């Protein structure tokens, strides 16, 4: 129970990696504000948390909207008295070759993945600065670091998340707030399996010989938000089975 008494907010927690992150933080004793653009999905995750003996509230949050991003922090503070942990997980990853990407798809990917991280972080940071403590983890991606094809907008948004993580870490220095990122590789989720069979080819290039699981990412997030990682800030932690090493 490493997070007993902590208040966490997770975006995109209605399914996939975000859901498992929320469940993992709750398992370790955090009370969780579960947010997602899909309120029903957020509620399901919150119910699962309560079924395992934890506490959670569910919120509909469109991370691209400032009022929603601010409401996430406000509601967490209202319900639980503060905000200790923010995990910016909400993100989409459509595929298209550059010459075919529609402008509005580009804008949407940037809005959710990068601007959403900014808006939620801004709101949370103001609260955490007043508390003089807090921890933020952004979910980036191996594609934000290494060459890739077919998802230039996604890759650029995640490279932006990585840069933003570092800047935020530096700006939060005197407030006792740590900011880090996890950078997953190929992670087995329903969305991944439904997209294409590229993952079959990818496994051959992964030294550990298998796809990652949402739990693998969640454990890395858990480590970064725990006190045992109290001297780690401005760091990007790869969870990718060795497919890319930098």
């Amino acid at each position, binding site marked *: 129970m*490493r997070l007993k008494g902590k208040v966490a907010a997770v975006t995109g927690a209605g399914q996939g990696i975000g859901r498992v992150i929320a469940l993992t933080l709750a398992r370790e004793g955090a009370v969780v504000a579960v947010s997602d653009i899909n309120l029903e999905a957020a509620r399901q995750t919150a119910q699962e948390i309560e079924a395992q003996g934890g506490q959670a509230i569910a919120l509909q949050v469109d991370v691209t909207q400032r009022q929603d991003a601010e409401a996430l922090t406000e509601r967490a503070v209202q319900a639980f008295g503060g905000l200790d942990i923010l995990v910016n997980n909400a993100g989409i990853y459509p595929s298209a070759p550059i010459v075919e990407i529609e402008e509005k798809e580009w804008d949407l990917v940037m809005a959710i993945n990068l601007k959403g991280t900014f808006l939620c972080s801004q709101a949370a940071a103001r609260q955490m600065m007043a508390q003089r403590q807090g921890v933020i983890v952004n979910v980036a991606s191996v594609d934000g670091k290494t060459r890739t094809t077919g998802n230039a907008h996604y890759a650029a948004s995640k490279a932006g998340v990585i840069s933003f993580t*570092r800047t935020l*870490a*530096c700006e939060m*220095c*005197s407030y006792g707030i*740590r900011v880090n990122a996890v950078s997953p590789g190929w992670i087995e989720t329903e969305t991944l399996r439904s997209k294409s069979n590229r993952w079959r080819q990818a496994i051959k290039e*992964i*030294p*550990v*010989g298998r796809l*990652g*699981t949402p739990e*693998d990412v969640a*454990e*890395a997030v*858990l*480590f970064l938000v725990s006190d*045992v*990682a*109290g*001297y*780690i*800030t*401005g*760091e990007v*932690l*790869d*969870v*990718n*089975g*060795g497919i890319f*090493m*930098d």
Partner: protein
Amino acid sequence: MESLRGKVALVTGGSRGIGRAIVVDLAAAGADVAFTYRQNVEQARKVVERLKELDRRGLAFQADVADFASAQLVVEQVITAWGKLDILVNNAGIHQNETIWDMDEAQWDRVLDVDLKGTFNYTRAVAPILRRQRAGKIVNIASIHGLRGRQAGPNYSAAKAGVIGLTKSVARDLGPYGVNVNAVAPGITETDMVRALSDEAKAGFVAGIVLGRMGQPEDVAHLVTFLCSDRARHITGEVIKVDGGQYI
């Protein structure tokens, strides 16, 4: 948090500083720990006593990690004593600061031998064992200076950069055999060596660190313990900084 119950770990340079903190943290997480030390028998004995206090087994071996043959012997002795080996932490390291225009060949060789070759020696000794059992963890203690380069430290920076390259290569080879290989890169950490610096020098270092303080050996140890646990099973070939934001 007994996540390493039943595991056997070997830590090089475990009698003081970061190494000692690693030995103690792995033991607190449930592992039995063997470690090497170079000269201070008394310190090594105290660490073994500490392990007994934690109700774990401990073994200390006097060894110079730069010696290839003695690495093989140490590993054999751990297997003889305890029947297995699950975790290797290559921590032993030294620095001998000098600007490039004054550095002796001997200063270069010694730091490369201990910091880089020592890591190779012990990794080479355990690799066949971990590969055969299709399970294991190797964590190498590098440094942010292997990434950013340190003033008056061409030997140290090169050795630590070498440790990072070695980490990734070994990760690729051992990945298919269920062995995770990672590196941690500390920034300035408060050990005896650092405490001996002038207050001015120390203040100078701290000024450049986002979290406003030097690292403690325990900060590094916590990260090592995490990487040695099953929670980190999908992390390999990775270099994780634990530097308070000294090098972002």
